[in-house]
């Protein structure tokens, strides 16, 4: 389909066979037959968290008689890149197979399509978000010379995924080059025809709407709307419910190992849940807390080995580039060892998520949250709970951080990192109670401190793990001497990074603990309405 000048929606009865509705009644134009009717199978692709949609991009796989292409369009439907589907194969050296969705951007053919998608999709896989079959009927709008000035395409779309549905018929008007003005007048005239209205949504949005979904309907953010006077127990039930929605939404992708971020989002949802359970105090029934804290700890621990190896593998290319003496080939057995370890950890993780224990946790947790929401204690109000918990968590960060000196052991920084995470989760969970600008600033300042502590802790953990990996590789005789030497270089790089993070800590903490930072947290805890 050419780029549409204007798009319309046809009322169901306006799109009857014959399409008489398109007789615009304007003497300047006539609608003539435009050729054969064709059928197009369409699959829209995006990441699970709608990164393409949020960036104003639409990626569509179109196939039909004589057509097979991946098409990337921008916000106004303008064509950005197009790859024939026949050549949409894995790059040379990767068996030359056809793409199987979901797939990572690096599996797409090199070229403008991949170049534009890579920075947007990042490490996330592209997967089908909607599928439909369009029956396209072509018409031509001709002027008084019987010259075609625009092509009209009536699109009758049957949605097959995520749910079978019929979308309202659409009409696209595409101007021929040099005839934009005339085609614009035709489009204006079409708006006057009963049963024709300007399309407010794209084909993808229409397909999703017909299936009861909308693009962008997943986010790992805790997007709940709380009010300050809400009972704290009810607010926490809402927050915990939302967190478990996120966790469950990411389970299938984690089990199928679609990309690393399903596990990441699942893990964050679990951590936030644990943080709420830990800080809720008497607001949540003691039986619920004591029953589910160990269960969510089990779930969190289940995710740790795979995530740690994911972090290693995601940073592998960057680490390998920094190695000076060793070659990529010498380092390769280390990569293969990581990949084997990860595959084993992933199998264990998938088994855990398919287990009866996880099923019991999910069912029981939902029931507990429903009971909590049905009869919440009226006191305290959530604004009071949020203010006190944030103030307390902030105070702990300040006191623990202030106690750290150049001589403090790494464990003290690790403990501070945990306190920072607790504060961060509290800020995010109660975000809807705060002034958005103040909230954004507070999270940003905390994030700067967390990044520094994260770098320190990650390099510490990776350094320790590197020793374990080396021991394992020597035990199973998969480590030539050259590989161990190369791993030694990585250990040195990690040590340098850790020292840098340690050196930066004092400055970052001083900024966070500055009077301005303190005033911001005080303001936040006062803004709850």
């Amino acid at each position: 389909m050419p780029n549409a000048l204007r798009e319309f929606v046809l009322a169901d009865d306006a799109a009857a066979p014959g399409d008489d509705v398109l007789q615009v009644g304007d003497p300047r134009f006539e609608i003539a037959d435009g050729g054969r009717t064709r059928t197009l199978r369409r699959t829209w692709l995006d990441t699970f968290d709608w990164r393409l949609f949020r960036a104003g991009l639409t990626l569509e796989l179109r196939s039909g008689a004589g057509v097979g292409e991946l098409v990337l369009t921008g916000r106004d439907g303008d064509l950005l890149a197009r790859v024939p589907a026949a050549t949409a194969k894995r790059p040379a050296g990767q068996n030359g197979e056809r793409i199987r969705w979901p797939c990572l951007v690096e599996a797409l053919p090199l070229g403008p399509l991949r170049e534009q998608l890579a920075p947007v999709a990042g490490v996330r896989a592209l997967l089908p978000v909607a599928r439909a079959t369009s029956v396209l009927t072509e018409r031509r709008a001709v002027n008084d010379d019987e010259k075609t000035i625009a092509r009209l395409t009536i699109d009758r779309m049957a949605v097959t995924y995520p749910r079978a549905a019929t979308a309202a018929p659409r009409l696209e008007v595409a101007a021929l080059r040099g005839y934009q003005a005339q085609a614009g007048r035709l489009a204006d005239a079409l708006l006057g025809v009963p049963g024709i209205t300007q399309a407010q949504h794209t084909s993808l949005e229409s397909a999703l709407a017909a299936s009861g979904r909308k693009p962008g309907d997943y986010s790992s953010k805790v997007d709940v709307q709380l009010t300050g006077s809400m009972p704290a127990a009810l607010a926490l039930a809402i927050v915990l419910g939302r967190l478990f929605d996120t966790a469950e939404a990411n389970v299938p992708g984690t089990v199928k190992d679609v990309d690393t971020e399903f596990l990441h989002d699942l893990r964050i949802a679990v951590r936030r849940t644990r943080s709420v359970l830990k800080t809720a105090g008497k607001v949540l029934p003691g039986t619920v807390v004591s029953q589910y804290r160990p269960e969510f700890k089990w779930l969190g621990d289940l995710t740790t080995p795979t995530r740690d190896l994911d972090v290693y593998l995601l940073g592998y290319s960057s680490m390998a580039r920094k190695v000076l003496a060793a070659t990529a080939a010498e380092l390769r057995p280390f990569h293969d060892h990581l990949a084997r370890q990860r595959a084993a950890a992933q199998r264990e993780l998938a088994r855990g998520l398919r287990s009866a224990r996880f099923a019991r946790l999910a069912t029981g947790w939902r029931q507990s949250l429903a009971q909590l929401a049905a009869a919440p204690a009226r006191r305290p109000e959530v604004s009071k709970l949020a203010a006190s918990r944030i103030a307390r968590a902030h105070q702990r960060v300040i006191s623990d951080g202030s106690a750290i000196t150049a001589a403090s052991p790494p464990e003290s920084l690790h403990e501070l990192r945990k306190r920072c995470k607790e504060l961060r989760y509290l800020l995010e969970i109660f975000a809807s109670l705060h002034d958005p600008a103040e909230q954004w600033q507070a999270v940003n300042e905390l994030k700067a401190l967390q990044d520094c502590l994260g770098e320190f802790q990650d390099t510490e953990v990776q350094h320790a793990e590197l020793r374990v990996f080396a021991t394992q590789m020597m035990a199973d005789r998969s480590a030539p001497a050259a590989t161990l030497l190369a791993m030694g270089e990585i250990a040195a790089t990690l040590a340098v990074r850790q020292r840098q993070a340690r050196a930066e800590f004092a400055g970052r903490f001083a900024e966070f603990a500055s009077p301005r930072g303190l005033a911001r947290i005080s303001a936040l805890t006062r803004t709850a309405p």
Partner: protein
Amino acid sequence: MKIIATYNIKGGVGKTATAVNIAYLAARDGYRVLLWDLDPQGAASFLFRVKPRVKGGGKALIAGKRPVDDAIKATDFTNLDLLPADFTYRNLDLHLDSERKSTRRLRGLLTPLRHEYDVVVLDCPPSISLLSENVLHAADLLLVPLIPTTLSVRTLDQLTDFIAGFDGQRPKILAFFSMIDRRKRLHKEIAEQLPAQRDDVAATVIPALSAIERMSVQRTPVTASSPRSQAARCYRELWQDARQRAKLPDPPVQP
């Protein structure tokens, strides 16, 4: 981007019929094609139902005051665009003369379109002028329709000699007999003998056929309206010969 021009000093020999059919066949094969109707009479524009009018006229185009791609119109056929004729093209010689490198101005105007089109077809007016010299310098291949007379052959020799004197790039020549009447002995003899003697004369001939004359009534190339006709067959053979001589790579877009 390859530039193919239909050229002959004489009028009424089938230049426009050849240009529109060659352009259509190239587009049908999947090439992105621009046909420039350089003849102020605007016959090619008429055939594609495009008004023979360019904003600012030929002067603005030649002077570069109006980008060439602003004037381009899509035809009703996929991959085939037209740069229409304008009555002011009758003064193109004057406008070209006022430009620097006046014999190479046309090629310069087409250069910005090299990523947009694979083939440009120039339909030239019958003349020997600064415009025709520009066309000869711009083209990679000249399609020269010949009426089968002794004088036509002499004209071809003159054209060949003229091009041989060019510095740098010289277009290839592919002459072919047009408007052949097989009932005439002279037509038949010349059309059979000359291709055997000269490499720059195609074996394909375009007969005088009413289907070709009817193009101006139907306002569509005969290769599109009657693809199974003898006329369409002859133009397809000519196009295949031209495509090989112009060394066109395979089209980027599959038909």
